[in-house]
C-alpha cells in the first residue's frame, strides 16, 4: 500500500473543500481522480504530494505515519513528485531543469547525464536537451516536466490534468509515456482528468470526487463509462484513433 489516509479534511476559511473518511492507494497502480471543477482534485493531489497539510486527518505513507513538519516532509518529497496542470520550467536549459532534482540528490555528474538523456528519450525530447526551456511549446513543456519528474525516479507520480493544455498528438504521447513508466518502473501514478478516454485506457482504479467527497470503484474498475454518464460529468467517449 502506498497511501492509507483516514478522516481527511481540508478547510479554507469556513469552506470544507475535502472531507474523505478513508482512501487507500495501492503501490504500482494508476489512479484516475475525477470530478467537476472545484471538487478538490488539485487540493487532494497537493496533500498526496505533501505540498500542503490537511486540516485534519491521518496519512500513512508506505506503512509510516506522516507528520506534517518540514524536516519530515522533505525526504518524502524526494520520492513523490507532482507535475502541475500548467507546469513551469526554470528559465534555463532543458538539461538544467532535469539536472535540478538530481543535483539535490547528490547524484554524480556522469550518472546525471545518463539519467537526463534516458528521461528525455522516454518522452521523445532528447533533441531539446540544450534548448532554452522557456521557448518550448505547451506540449513540449508538459513532456519535459514529466521527464524532469521521472529523472528523480519517484515512487509516486502525481499529474494534475496532464493533457488538458496540449494538442491531440501530445495527449496520446503523454498517455503512452505514463502507461510506459508505470509498466517499466512500477511507479504509482495518480492523475486528475475530465477525459473518459484517458480513464478507461490508462487507469487501474478510479476515484471520484464531488464537493470534496469521495467515491471509489473499490478497485474493480466498475466505476467506468456508465457510471460517469450517470453523473453527467464527462464528455462523450472519444475513439482511440
Amino acid at each position, binding site marked *: 500500500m502506498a497511501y492509507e489516509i483516514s478522516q481527511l479534511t481540508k478547510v479554507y476559511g469556513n469552506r470544507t473543500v475535502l472531507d474523505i473518511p478513508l482512501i487507500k492507494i495501492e503501490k504500482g497502480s494508476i489512479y484516475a481522480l475525477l470530478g467537476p471543477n472545484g471538487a478538490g482534485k488539485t487540493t487532494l493531489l497537493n496533500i498526496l504530494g505533501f*505540498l500542503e497539510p490537511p486540516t485534519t486527518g491521518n496519512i500513512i505513507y508506505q506503512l509510516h505515519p506522516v507528520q506534517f513538519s518540514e524536516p519530515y516532509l522533505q525526504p518524502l518529497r524526494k520520492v513523490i513528485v*507532482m507535475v*502541475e496542470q*500548467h507546469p*513551469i520550467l526554470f528559465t534555463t536549459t532543458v538539461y538544467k531543469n532535469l539536472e535540478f*532534482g538530481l543535483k*539535490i540528490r547528490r547524484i554524480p555528474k556522469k550518472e546525471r547525464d545518463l539519467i537526463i538523456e534516458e528521461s528525455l528519450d522516454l518522452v521523445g525530447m532528447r533533441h531539446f536537451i540544450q534548448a532554452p526551456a522557456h521557448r518550448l511549446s505547451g506540449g513540449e513543456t508538459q513532456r519535459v516536466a514529466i521527464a524532469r519528474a521521472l529523472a*528523480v525516479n519517484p515512487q509516486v507520480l502525481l499529474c494534475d490534468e496532464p493533457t488538458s493544455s496540449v494538442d491531440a498528438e501530445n495527449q496520446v504521447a503523454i498517455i503512452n509515456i505514463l502507461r510506459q513508466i508505470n509498466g517499466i518502473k512500477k511507479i504509482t501514478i495518480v492523475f486528475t482528468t475530465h477525459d473518459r478516454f484517458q480513464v478507461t485506457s490508462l487507469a487501474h482504479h478510479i476515484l471520484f470526487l464531488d464537493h470534496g467527497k469521495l467515491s471509489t470503484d473499490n478497485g474493480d474498475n466498475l466505476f467506468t463509462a456508465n457510471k460517469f454518464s450517470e453523473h453527467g460529468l464527462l464528455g462523450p467517449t472519444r475513439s482511440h484513433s
Partner: protein
Amino acid sequence: MDFFVDSLYSALLLVASLDPEMVAIVTVSLKVSGTSTLLASLMGVPFGFLVAFESFPGKRMLITCLNTLLALPTVAIGLFVYAFISRRGIFGPLDLLYTQKAIVIGQTLLILPIVATFTIAAISKIDERYRKTAMTLGANRWQTALVVFREARFGIVAAIIAAFGRVIAEVGISMMLGGNARGFTRTITTAMALEYDKGQFTLAVALGIILIGLSFGINLLFHFFQGRTRV
C-alpha cells in the same frame, strides 16, 4: 546662445582631453557611489528577499514603511547622519565627517530602501509555481529560496542599477557629509554646483555631459535587465 555653444565646445574638449581634475572628480563619484551601492545591495537584497519570501505578522506594514522611505529627501538623510557623525554626535570620535566614508554612509541609507523594495517587488512577481516545483522535486527550504532568487535575478540586478543611478546623481548628502573638498570628497554633482556658483561653466558642463552619459548607460542597463525579466 554663443555663451552656451562656447561652453559646450570647451566642455567637450575638456572631456576629450581627459582633464586630470575632471577625471579625479569622476573617480571619486564612481568610487563613493559604487561602494554605497555595493553595501546597500549586500544588505538590501537579502533583506528584501527575506521580507518577500517569508510570511510574518506586520509584513504589509513593513513594506509600507519601506515604500515611505523611498521618498526621503537627501538633505534629510544628510542632516540625520550629520547628527551622528559630527563632533558632538555619538560617532564623533571616529572623525567621519567630511570624508568619503561619511558620503558612503549617507548614500547607503538613501538607497537601502530602494534596493530592498525593488527586490521585494522582483521576488513577489515570481510565479508561485517555481517554489512549488522546487519543493516537489525535493528541494529543501534553502534550495527552494535559491530557485526563487535565481528566477528573480534580472529584477534584482535592475534594482541595484536603479539604486546606483540614484546615488550617482544625488547632491545633498555629498555636499552635507562630504564637504566638497577638492580631490578628496568632490563628486560630480557637488563640483557642478560649485562651478555654477563660481560662474565657470566649462567644467560644470563637462561633468554634466559625463553624468548624462553615465545616466544613459545606467538606464540602458536597467532596461536591458527589466526586459530580461519579461522573457
